[in-house]
């Protein structure tokens, strides 16, 4: 019983529904697990244990009465701390919102609760999602379960570390430039960024709303499918969602292989990654060749401009979106006595972290009248060109394959003082955000030093099923769900 935390969600749901274990027993095991490990990982900002126990008892009652339960019955789901959960703090890992309690549920939370999932708590992250390491949190850095002196990746570092350290089987993150896939790669879990518009962003605290998307993290693709089915679909509260309700499923190996998939490999990007990552990914491709996929080298000509274009757009949107944190609409209590409005506004925003301030300043700069054409308009042209190139590639290939990150996890504090260095690490992941296409990071190997790295797959818009199919083959071949560090 005490080892139930090792089991994936899909196994636990069956056990709960068949009465082999109660939801309350399982949640109690999970609470013990979180309490015994979180001091080392720092993945939780807010714990919701009392509510979780109440919900588990209610689910047990439903089962006892023979009522139908949802596909996530009794499963604890951790939520990144920028997704609103009614009655819980929604700090975005910022001092600015340290006392802000969300008055409503994000649509994804409503959907999870409808399927009898249990919100177990809010997870640590880079402040407002701005970072690649999860060190930029007002609540301290998230530590990588594989080595606690190393970064967990970001910005959804708490979401990945909590799943990787077997605290919870499933979490939600948000991905603006790789914020789900980067920590998934660093912590050896699966992270999926769905197509832009396939999951409602209602209730997600916006940082860069044309780029970001909520998505799931889990240890096995068998757990990604039910949570993706739960959160995706059109939402009247978010008019950017699209009215395609795909029902994703795990296909048999035979069914997957009945379609000969064409895979475009971005070899130049693979070669530019750290040598162990490049070698590891090439080895995995060789193993997959037995599945008779068609592998071909694919090329992107405009890659050099991607990082600059991405950060111009993200900063511009950040400067607009974060203007609401002014202590009038959102913020903390601070007496306005002695201030006129502008100085009060500036004073109250002094609680924002350095990286957040930097991006607001940069956004203000690139949107200013004299520089709009030089930066923002050009960045949008680059974005369109990248999208065009990807569309052409995806007419030819079913899947584009590249590494998730060019580097292995690095030491806490090692790169924190150099923003440009960190921005350049996002090159491989920002492509899916600039284009809006779905992308998944799958564990691809462990370095000699014992650090995980991931392989990234990108598919055409709303073709998440293809990503799932290939992930199933990977899981069958490499059994990566068993790659975790015991704490």
């Amino acid at each position, binding site marked *: 019983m005490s080892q139930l935390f090792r089991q994936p969600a899909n196994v636990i749901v069956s056990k709960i529904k068949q009465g082999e274990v109660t939801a309350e027993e399982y949640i109690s095991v999970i609470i013990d697990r979180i309490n015994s490990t979180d001091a080392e990982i720092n993945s939780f900002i807010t714990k919701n244990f009392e509510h979780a126990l109440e919900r588990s008892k209610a689910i047990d009652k439903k089962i006892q009465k023979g009522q139908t339960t949802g596909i996530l019955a009794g499963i604890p789901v951790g939520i990144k701390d920028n997704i609103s959960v009614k009655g819980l703090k929604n700090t975005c890992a910022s001092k600015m919102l340290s006392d802000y309690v969300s008055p409503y549920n994000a649509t994804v939370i409503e959907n999870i609760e409808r399927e009898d999932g249990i919100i177990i708590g809010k997870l640590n992250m880079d402040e407002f999602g701005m970072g690649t390491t999860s060190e930029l949190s007002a609540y301290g850095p998230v530590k990588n379960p594989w080595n606690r002196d190393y970064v967990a990746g970001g910005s959804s570092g708490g979401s990945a570390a909590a799943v990787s350290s077997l605290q919870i089987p499933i979490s939600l993150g948000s991905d603006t430039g790789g914020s789900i896939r980067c920590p998934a790669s660093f912590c050896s879990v699966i992270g999926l960024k769905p197509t832009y518009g396939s999951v409602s962003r209602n209730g997600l605290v916006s940082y860069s709303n044309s780029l970001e998307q909520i998505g799931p993290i889990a240890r096995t693709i068998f757990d990604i499918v039910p949570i993706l089915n739960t959160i995706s679909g059109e939402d009247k509260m978010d008019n950017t969602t699209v009215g395609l309700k795909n029902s994703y499923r795990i296909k048999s190996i035979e069914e997957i292989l009945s379609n000969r998939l064409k895979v475009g490999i971005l070899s130049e990007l693979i070669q530019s990654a750290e040598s162990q990552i490049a070698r590891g990914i090439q080895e995995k491709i060789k193993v997959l060749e037995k599945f008779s996929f068609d592998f071909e080298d694919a090329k992107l000509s405009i890659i050099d*401009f991607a990082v600059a274009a991405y950060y111009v757009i993200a900063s511009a949107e950040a400067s607009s979106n974060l203007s609401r944190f002014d202590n009038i609409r959102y913020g903390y209590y601070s007496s306005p006595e002695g201030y006129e409005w502008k100085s009060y506004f500036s004073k109250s925003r*002094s609680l924002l972290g350095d990286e957040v301030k930097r991006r607001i300043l940069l956004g203000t700069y690139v949107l200013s009248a004299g520089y709009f054409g030089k930066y923002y308009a050009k960045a949008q042209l680059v974005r369109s060109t990248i999208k065009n190139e990807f569309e052409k590639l995806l007419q030819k290939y079913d899947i584009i394959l590249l590494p998730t990150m060019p580097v292995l996890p690095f030491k806490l504090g090692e790169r924190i003082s150099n923003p440009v260095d960190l921005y350049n690490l996002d090159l491989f992941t920002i492509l899916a955000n600039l284009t809006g296409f779905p992308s998944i990071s799958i564990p691809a190997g462990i370095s000699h030093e014992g650090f995980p790295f991931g392989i990234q797959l990108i598919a055409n818009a709303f073709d998440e099923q293809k990503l799932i199919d290939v992930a199933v083959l990977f899981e069958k071949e490499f059994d990566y769900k068993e790659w975790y560090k015991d704490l």
Partner: protein
Amino acid sequence: MSFEEDVKKLCDLSKLEIPDEMIMEAAKKVGDVLALFSKLDEFRKSDYDIRIENDLRVEKSYSSLRADQSPDINTDNNGDRFEFQPLNIKDGFIVGPRI
């Protein structure tokens, strides 16, 4: 005007306070990022086959988004009719995602 002064001006426009003793460091890091952004100067539109479609330029009048007014433009760039029927409209305006 020094770049530190520029950053102070930016702080003023952005309603942000950065203490004087930290302005130099902040200015250096902002300068480093702007140097990264300058990579865009090398981008030449003519080097690429750019198809500008709806993702970049959507020619819709504001009134086309209002349920209480008949749209004065109801064709796209090619002269084809487009239909835009958002699910959630309040007082004639689209309700976007909260926060």
